[in-house]
């Protein structure tokens, strides 16, 4: 695969002012002495000039007025960062920490600590009976708390959606 930049590529860099000082000197010498470089340079500068001079399209006369009429019904949205309720973030964080901690405790207590008959821990993890912590009552409480949290988040989401729809309907 040829990775050498072509004449045109080098000339475009030169025209755009992105060539290094050494490259500028080399290219200027080539344009002066090499017919192919000279012809290509002329063509590209002509094209470059035409592109710079192309005129902008203009929208209809009512363009600005239309937009101003439409935005009259809108207010500027608050910064995205302010949508995010910090309490929700903290709740989600706390939930995950709780889940991870519970899983770690559960995992540690399932380890066969008596393999070498000794433990360096100040207590015997084998005596902790996780089954008692994860009995149906605790599990139901845990699930209920999560369901309530989920419903609260859903409610907030639906409220926000309703407000958004109402503001759009005002146009």
């Amino acid at each position, binding site marked *: 695969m040829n990775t050498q930049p072509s004449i045109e590529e080098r000339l475009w860099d030169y025209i755009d002012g992105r060539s290094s000082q050494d490259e500028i000197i080399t290219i200027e010498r080539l344009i002066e002495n090499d017919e192919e470089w000279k012809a290509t340079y002329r063509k590209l500068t002509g094209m470059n000039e035409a592109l710079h001079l192309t005129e902008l399209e203009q929208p209809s006369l009512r363009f600005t007025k239309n937009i101003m009429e439409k*935005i009259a019904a809108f207010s500027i949205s608050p910064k995205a960062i302010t949508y995010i309720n910090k309490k929700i973030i903290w709740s989600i964080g706390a939930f995950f920490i709780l889940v991870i901690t519970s899983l770690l405790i559960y995992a540690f207590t399932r380890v066969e600590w008596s393999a070498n008959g000794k433990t360096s821990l100040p207590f015997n993890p084998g005596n902790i009976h996780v089954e008692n912590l994860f009995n149906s009552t605790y599990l139901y409480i845990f699930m209920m708390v999560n369901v309530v949290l989920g419903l609260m988040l859903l409610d907030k989401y639906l409220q926000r959606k309703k407000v958004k729809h109402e503001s759009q309907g005002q146009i």
Partner: protein
Amino acid sequence: MQTGLNDTELISRILLGEQQLYEQLIRRYQDYVFTLTFRVIKNREDAEEVAQDVFIKAFRSLNNFKGLSKFSTWLYAIVHNTCITFLRKKELEIYSMDNENIFAKVNSQHSPFDANELEQKARIAMANKAIGLLSQDDAEIITLFYKAEQSLEEISNILCIETNAVKVRLHRARIRLKEKMEKHFAEEVKDLN
């Protein structure tokens, strides 16, 4: 009403409640935004609708403009995303480089190359028509670079691609533009030499 305020000053005052000043921002950028949408969407009515949508979106999100880039760069990113969304929704025919039908359309229009027209005007018209023959991606990058006067770094922010990729895309777009010019406007291209 022109107050001579720069973009940042205008935005600060709009955010403080002077909503009517937004009109100045629209007037300042409407031709650039419309040219971009028109060159990408290639239909005047749709382009105008999308351009209006861009300014409405920009107004509603003005609070999120952090001033880390130029306002124009931020605005053109909205143009890019809105055009993409529009094209996906409408499933518009994307004009390819080799679509000869477009050339037929161009030829069916009134030719601007009258004998007594200034040479420069002919060149500009040719460049405009040749851009019209490009694919939406090529037309967009050419317009951003030449008309919207965005640097490669700014275009990379607008299109969410690496600066090197922008450089490559721009180079390829220029090659294709040159090919279009040579193929369809051979006589005018001779004048470029």
